[in-house]
């Protein structure tokens, strides 16, 4: 019974991993760019949620939306002010830009919020729910279900909508897209907005269920790398499966080996993937 | 037979960019490769240079099977290539660019530099100029110099003469002739018929990933299939 509880809990958390990882894979698929600051976007989403609850007394819907909007705006701004200028430059500039941004955001957060762990005051998502004999915190269940829904929505947006095909057109061939009347810069800014927005909501969802400190950004950033590496670079659906798998692996290894070893198992998996299947489960060789 | 490519095809998903192309080149030839945009010429070139792994087919160079060999192995074997979009080493000088090529057969710096200097002179470039400051024609010339320094026996030129002024074009044609006289066999992809007419004795016409015609330049320009490939069905009907 405990094992089932662990498994369900892992899948629910994995769904949130899937959501923010889909943001990372989106940018990779669109512009072959790895955002080292993606975990920091998640972390900022958590603090936005906290501020909205503490200052404005907003409920889950309010702070979830606020985190999404704030991070969407940040994503667009980061693209317009920084990424746009480096993305076709040397590799060093590409990697340093988002890596430096990660440090800037992480340590600014340390400076403002201190290194202490915080958690959201009680929200309407408190309490537990019993499903088929296992007990789960309501917040975890809501976070997991919302995350799965949003990840699938993002996948559908990319594959089924006009906007999605415009985005893909830019990813395939910038010049050709321009000739079709699409403005690549706008589409890429939008991609960054969507990506950071997804990270922001994921952060807000995580904040309902777990305490955190500014250093979680690094952990989530690396988790997103592992998820994307497993799911295949550029595939949102791949991220969904991979996120669930990694949530599961984490939960089970924490249960069997102890909480400290779950990170070792997950990063070990990443190294193994690089050797055995660098294109990921869903990626093409 | 220096180069023999048999039934080469390359598919990207469902799209067959090259669909069963054949090409044989004798040592000492200059062969032209023409065809409309998107006919698969560059992909075919990439297969020959080892840059793209063909889906099917075999590529033999001087009797050795290079089908699955890496691009650097192609270079060592003696197949050199230029790129449709010139990719020079922009942080380096012209001479240093050419030296990178020269190092393949001259591992020591002083030998490589001497060899590179001769090539730079031959191609009419300025040794100490930064590659970054070159325009497109200069870059294309530098690409030729660079690959020439690596000592190829077969040179694959991918639109190296495109976008030149008439004066530059004449100089470039003369340069290709010089290279040919040095004993280098050449396959050249080109849109400009003047280049093909003056340089080549044999032309292959590519369309939709296959060779649809071959012969002397004079023969292929009169070929019905070629005219149709370039101008579409309407043009043929109009002529009729």
């Amino acid at each position, binding site marked *: 019974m405990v094992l089932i509880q662990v498994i369900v809990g892992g899948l629910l958390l994995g769904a949130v991993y899937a959501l923010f990882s889909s943001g990372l894979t989106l940018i990779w698929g669109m512009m*072959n*760019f*790895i955002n*080292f600051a993606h975990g920091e976007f998640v972390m900022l989403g958590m603090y936005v949620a906290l501020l909205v609850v503490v200052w404005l007394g907003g409920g889950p819907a309010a702070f979830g939306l606020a985190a999404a909007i704030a991070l969407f705006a940040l994503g667009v701004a980061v693209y317009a*002010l*920084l990424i746009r200028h*480096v993305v076709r430059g*040397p*590799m*060093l*500039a*590409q*990697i*340093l*830009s988002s890596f*430096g*941004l990660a*440090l*800037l955001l*992480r*340590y600014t957060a340390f*400076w403002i919020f201190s290194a202490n762990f915080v958690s959201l005051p009680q929200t309407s998502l408190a309490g537990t729910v019993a499903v088929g004999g296992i007990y789960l915190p309501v917040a975890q269940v809501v976070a997991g279900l919302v995350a799965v829904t949003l990840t699938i929505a993002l996948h559908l947006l990319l594959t089924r909508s006009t906007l999605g095909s415009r985005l893909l057109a830019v990813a395939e061939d910038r010049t050709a897209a321009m000739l079709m009347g699409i403005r690549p810069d706008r589409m890429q800014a939008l991609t960054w907005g969507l990506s950071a927005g997804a990270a922001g909501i994921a952060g807000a969802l995580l904040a309902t269920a777990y305490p955190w400190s500014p250093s979680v950004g690094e952990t989530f950033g*690396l988790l997103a*790398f*592992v998820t994307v*590496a497993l799911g295949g670079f550029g595939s949102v659906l791949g991220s969904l499966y991979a996120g669930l798998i990694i949530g599961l692996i984490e939960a089970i290894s924490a249960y069997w080996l102890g909480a*400290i*070893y779950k*990170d*070792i198992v997950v*990063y070990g998996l*990443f*190294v193994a993937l*690089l*050797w055995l299947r*660098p294109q990921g489960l869903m990626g093409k060789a | 037979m220096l180069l023999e490519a048999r039934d080469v095809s390359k598919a990207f998903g469902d799209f067959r960019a090259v669909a069963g192309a054949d090409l044989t080149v004798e040592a000492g030839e200059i062969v032209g490769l023409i065809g409309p945009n998107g006919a698969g010429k560059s992909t075919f070139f990439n297969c020959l*240079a080892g*840059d793209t792994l063909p889906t099917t087919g075999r590529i033999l160079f001087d009797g050795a099977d290079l089908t699955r060999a890496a*691009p*650097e192995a*192609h*270079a060592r074997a003696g197949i*050199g*290539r230029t*790129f449709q979009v010139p*990719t*020079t*080493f922009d*942080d*380096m000088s012209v001479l*240093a660019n050419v030296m*990178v090529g020269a*190092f*393949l057969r001259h*591992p*020591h*710096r002083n030998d490589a530099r001497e060899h590179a200097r001769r090539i730079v002179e031959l191609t009419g470039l300025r040794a100490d100029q930064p590659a970054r400051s070159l325009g497109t024609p200069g870059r294309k010339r530098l690409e030729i110099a*660079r*690959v020439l320094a*690596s000592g190829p026996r077969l040179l694959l030129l991918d639109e190296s003469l495109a976008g030149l002024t008439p004066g530059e074009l004449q100089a470039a044609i003369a340069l290709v002739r010089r290279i040919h006289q040095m004993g280098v066999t050449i396959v050249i992809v080109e849109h400009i018929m003047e280049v093909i007419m003056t340089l080549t004795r044999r032309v292959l016409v590519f369309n939709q990933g296959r060779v649809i015609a071959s012969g002397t330049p004079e023969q292929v320009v009169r070929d019905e299939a070629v005219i149709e490939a370039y101008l579409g069905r309407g043009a043929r009907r109009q002529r009729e």
Partner: protein
Amino acid sequence: MKKLLAQPASGQRVSVWLLAAALVLYPLVFSDAFYRDVGVTFLLAAISASAWNIVGGYAGQVSVGHSMFFGLGAYTPLLFYTLWGWPPLAGIPVGILLSVGLAVVIGLPTFRLSGHYFSMATIAVAELIRIFVGTWALVGGAIGLQGPAMARGWWDLTFRGDLPYYYIFLAVLALVLAVTFALERRRFGYYLRAIKSSERAARSLGVPVRRVKLQALALSAAFTSAAGSLYGVKTGFIDPDSGFGILVSVQMVIFAALGGAGTLFGPLLGALILVPLQTASNTWFGGGGSGLTFVLYGGIIVLIARFEPGGLFDLWRRLAPHLRRRAHAA
């Protein structure tokens, strides 16, 4: 003066000798313990950033997890001392060997793929090792390891005062720079720069790209490991964060990038600017200053990436002709 400006090559040679003389004389002029400590910190930063520069700067393969080599270098001598009482000097080559092995393990799979994979792999592996070491009691767990408190002989590399360390570090820095300089002029150096510019073009000219990148990484890892060993024996203490922490990697990247990644003296210049700055901010703000230092680091890295990816040396190279012209006109 005019002659110096007109002949940049000989000007450069003069500056190098002046720099070398300044570095040799510095601890004799500033004999205060504080200044010597700053000097040693600067040299260590310059060594590790120059080591990073071989693969990150010249070959353009941006590692953001070089702390893995630094940490291996720092841990191995202290571990051998703790376990069997070996002199730290004996552990240094073992640390180097382990680092080179690790470099091959990371480089072999990732160098087949786009450069982003390498960057991601480096940060993930560094983090993996940091966490792993923190949970492994044999290597001291979260507490770390200590070196010899009292020297049993010179081979323990445990000295009173900073002066011996200063000159050992200076010698190692000279070695790293000399090797880099020699390689820069050879085929290997040309190949590295070609790879950084365009791997595809380099391969088309017969450059064995994967092998060259792997060699660059192995060499860089060896020197970084040596830097880590020097840090370990000098401090006499190492823990997971000071050996394998991400900030160790960040410092190497930022020193090299600020001065000029892919230039011989760029990392040294970066360290020359940032180490005193860091020391000053630590003195002014106390412990709280370190957080602020890294906000600043992040900001500087972003600005370099956005405006001057070539670093200060590149900026100088572009500005120098204008300044020279103005000097002539005046």
